[in-house]
């Protein structure tokens, strides 16, 4: 019997080594990027893949990118990548999520051959389309949402193709910032390639390959070990978005969650078909929500790699809003449908008797303000749901987002906006043995004419409590005191005040 090529005692060592590379990519990106959206809000993720396209490590700053990039690498692998190539993509139907998430994939080259892939996804503040910020309300076709980039070679032979770059930059409202952010993304991919090469040289190719097998198996083992005591649990969750931006008709999401053979089966049969508006999402986003939901059951130290997804089986009906196909519009699906999918999975888990938190605010409260020569985009935190372990945290991003806020002072210096009030929204969390977290109140006074685009949710359907806890208070959007719809685009005159009150989280336990 020959000695094993990889000693399982070294799992911890290899785990640190590959995570270190992904982490380094993230730090190069955040350090170098120009836009507050990546740099301050950290709306970005980086991941490392082996030759077979298996994700061996990911540094995810926000969950909506969790486990969604393997599709990007698969899309690139299907295009005959060659050494020296660098790919750019955002097409939701070819490896992307929604158009602002420009994803770069670098085939890693060692001694003349491709030996793996480094991928970096970042939410860019504008990729063209019908409204500044490329998060339009009311879009019905993908093309309205911005420039669609299928996997294309942004570089060949290690040289940036300036013609492709100029084509991209000619289609966005803020080309200088985009150029800077893309430069940082490329530097991050290069850092990943360097790290992967060093690892191969140190560990040896055969040993590293066997080590990656072991690492993915290990993650899968830990995920499934968590599911073993839940074997046989089954339950249904049903929830809905409050309209698709075109009409106010609810967009239902339905899921049956079952734990079988220590895997989490999620069957979305019965969910809404593709809708006209842009709350649809491609399968990659639904998968990310599923990975996130399972991830919340695991301890923080389980490595983030493809092994988690192996513990999940999905049934995603073709042509549904949670498995959309071209040319359905998707900008809000990534930010809002992803939240509702997560919420619904949690409801199904709760009905299956799996202890999970009550629903959180369930929206990212996307706010875009844009005028002559400027665009400002931010999302707002709200209440997290309470759980058996205690009250829900207040004023945080829940579910699939975790971006930071924009400092009031920085915002006022940079844009013709004044913040009139930024406060906790008292008593907005649902009651119960443990109360839900509170939402926030933020008022923006326009100091110059501009257009406001709001993509928000949970303005009529409140976040639900769990185990008998009360619902959180629904959010409110208002212009000069008059209530606005959840998804709306309005022109603002100088002096107008837009006030956003974000939802509170659901409570836990009957009092």
């Amino acid at each position, binding site marked *: 019997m020959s000695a094993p090529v990889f*000693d*399982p*005692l*070294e*799992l*911890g*060592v290899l785990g*640190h*080594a590959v*995570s*270190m590379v992904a*982490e*380094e990519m993230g*730090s*190069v990106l955040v*350090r*170098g990027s*120009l*836009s*507050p959206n990546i*740099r*301050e809000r950290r709306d970005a993720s980086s991941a490392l893949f082996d030759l077979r396209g298996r994700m061996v490590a990911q540094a*995810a700053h926000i*969950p909506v990118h969790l486990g969604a990039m393997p599709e990007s690498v698969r899309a690139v692998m299907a295009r005959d990548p060659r050494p020296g190539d660098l790919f750019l993509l955002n097409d939701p139907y070819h490896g992307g999520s929604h158009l602002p998430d420009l994803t770069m994939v670098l085939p890693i080259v060692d001694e003349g051959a491709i030996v793996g892939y480094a991928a970096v996804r970042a939410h860019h503040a504008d990729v063209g389309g019908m409204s500044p910020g490329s998060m339009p309300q009311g879009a019905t076709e993908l093309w309205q949402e911005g420039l669609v980039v299928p996997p294309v070679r942004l570089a060949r032979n290690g040289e940036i193709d300036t013609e492709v770059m100029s084509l991209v930059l000619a289609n966005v409202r803020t080309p200088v910032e985009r*150029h*800077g952010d893309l*430069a*940082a993304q490329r*530097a991050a991919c290069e850092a990943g390639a360097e790290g992967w090469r060093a690892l191969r040289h140190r560990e040896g190719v055969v040993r590293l390959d066997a080590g990656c097998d072991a690492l993915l198996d*290990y993650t899968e*083992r*830990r995920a499934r*070990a968590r599911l073993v005591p839940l074997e046989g649990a089954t339950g249904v969750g049903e929830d809905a978005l409050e309209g698709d931006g075109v009409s106010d008709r609810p967009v239902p999401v339905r899921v049956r969650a079952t734990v079988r053979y220590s895997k989490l089966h999620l069957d979305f049969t019965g969910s809404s078909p593709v809708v006209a508006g842009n709350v649809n999402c491609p399968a990659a986003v639904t998968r990310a929500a599923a990975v*996130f939901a399972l991830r*919340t059951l695991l301890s*923080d130290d*389980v490595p983030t790699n493809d092994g988690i997804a192996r513990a999940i089986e999905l049934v995603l009906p073709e042509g549904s809003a949670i498995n959309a196909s071209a040319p359905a519009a998707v900008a809000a699906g990534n930010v809002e449908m992803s939240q509702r999918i997560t919420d619904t999975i949690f409801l199904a888990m709760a009905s299956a008797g799996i202890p999970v*938190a009550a629903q*959180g605010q369930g929206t990212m409260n996307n706010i875009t303000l844009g005028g002559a020569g400027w665009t400002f985009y931010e999302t707002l*935190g709200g209440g*997290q749901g309470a759980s058996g372990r*205690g009250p829900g*945290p207040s*004023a*945080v*991003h*829940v579910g699939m987002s*975790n*971006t*930071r*806020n924009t*400092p*009031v*002072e*920085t915002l*006022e*210096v940079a844009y013709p906006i*004044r913040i009139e009030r*930024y406060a*906790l929204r008292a008593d907005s969390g649902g009651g119960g043995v443990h109360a839900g977290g509170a939402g926030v109140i933020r008022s923006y006074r326009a100091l110059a004419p501009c257009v406001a685009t709001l993509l928000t949710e949970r303005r009529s359907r409140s976040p639900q409590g769990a185990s008998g806890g009360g619902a959180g208070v629904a959010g409110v959007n208002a212009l000069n005191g008059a209530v606005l719809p959840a998804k709306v685009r309005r022109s603002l005159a100088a002096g107008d005040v837009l006030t956003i009150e974000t939802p509170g989280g659901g409570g836990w336990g009957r009092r």
Partner: protein
Amino acid sequence: MTPRAAAGVDVGGTFTDLVAVRDDGSVAARKVSSTPDDQSRGVENALAALGAEPASIDRLVHGTTIVTNALLERRGARVVLCATDGFTDLLELRRQERASLYDLAAHHPAPLVQRRDTVPVAERMTHHGVLRPLDAEGIAAAVDAVRASGASSVAVSLLHSYAHPQHEQALAAAMRAALPDAEIVASHDVLPEIREYERTSTTVAEAYVRPLVARYLGRLGSALTAAGYPAPGVVTSGGGVLPAAAAARHGAALALSGPAGGVTGAALAARAAGFDRALTIDIGGTSADCGLVLDGEPLVETGGSVAGVPIALPRVLVETVSAGGGSIAWVDDGAALRVGPRSGGARPGPVAFGRGGTQPTVTDAHLTLGTIHAARFDAGVSLDIAAARAAVTALAARLDATPERTAEAIIATADAEMARALRRVSVERGIDPRHCVLVAFGGGGPLHACSLAGRLGMSRVLVPPFAGVLSALGLAVAAERHEALASVMQRTDALDAAALGARLRDLAGRVAEPEPGCRRQFWARTRYVGQGHELEVPLADGDDGHSLAGRFAGMHRARTGFTLDTGVEVVSLRHAATGRPRAAALGRRGPGTWDAARCHDDGSAFEAAVAGPASIALPDATLFVAPGWTARALATGGWLVEHDA
């Protein structure tokens, strides 16, 4: 006549270390138990253990964990926060990111101010100036609310005060007049820099710890001076020393006083050995502290948080990981060997300590392999090697491996975590570890040094003299330093040499000289317009916005690999006036001194080279020379371990 001496006293969780550097270059070290209920007794005990004539000590520098502990244990003063009307919840709102990405029940540590202890102030500044004037009525209402609260510590933090402090000044003056016994802290004094959350949090931290720090330093100062010692200085998070009286008014700046001394000591050791670029690691029982030395100085950065409280003041870069000699090895539910984050700490500590520990630790793994010189371990601890081995063997059985292989894997796993932190510290700043020497100290540093260096592609390791008490040595020699910060918020193309010079002179005028002829340094905290994070660009005489922008671009390229064709803006200016560091000649002095164990009585072994594998017993640690490495004793003290080419 006794030579005069400078003493450094470093208070840790378990031990209080003292190092005295005498003018003749000789060094004495003492270790006594810490006195957590009142750290000052440990300081006095350490001085008593030194037994020097108090008058012979002409300088006494203290590294204290009193602020860190007050923040961790939330033991500071009750603080009332006065904030702009409409913005009193800033501390609750934080930056809206959650405490844990996946643990949905996790909360951030509670803010230092209770929500009911916030007072809205009827005023509003913008970056252009007054929008809503603060009138007498508004001031009176705020003063009344503070008085009614009964709190004795007040933080005043109003929007845009970094540029327009007038409202804060007026309110603080009124508070001081009306409430003479209260401590009033205004944000433009503590941190005149844009970004309201970090500024407010730092200001509140100052108001929270100042009364406690003032009491502690007052008590310590009178006890020491009564005994004939000089008034103490205190090392700040930034690695400079402040006289106790000044330190008492900069409590928040002491939050990382302890670890700063270690990197300062490591920088001294590196300079003495001829290195000006180093990665440093201090491995203790429960954790490891990683730092970076550039141009012979500890790298100082701004920002970060302590115990969940953002404190945006300069601090010596230290990244701490939960890996140390006491870290416990275990098997998780995925059948993988894990090490830490749980630790046996000092008590019960490793199994071999015989204090009740039953789970094998990193130290037990070393004892199983025989890499630690058992005989020379901590004084007062007798080691039960058989028990250590039995614990490792039990774990090995669960992993279906030999005890030796398991012990190696325990050490390798801890090494991998520490190496990851060292790499983060360096690579995130654009520094390639391969161009650095690794300075390894603390009880465990010299044991892990070769392996860590190997993992990072580094070829040289420096094990300084006094590896176990290097922080105290760093304190003894640290220079006095006074600092100031001023907001700028201007683009470099609007800054000519005259305007910049005037701002620097103004800043210099606000900083007391520690001594005549001190070194004055200026930095511009600079970024591309639109970025949210600044680089600190050193300024030279005669600089204007153009030369500054050029230097910034060079630094940006070095750190990120690219530059941008966009405007550059200066967020703020920072100034430090630094006195001379205390000279310390760290030479070897033969038998009877710290490294006596390493040489024959005639001192002949000093030049000896020790080829790995070998363990060298140091007075308070073991140096493990790995296979393929060779250790050489240095004339300046300590050992240089080099990878055999």
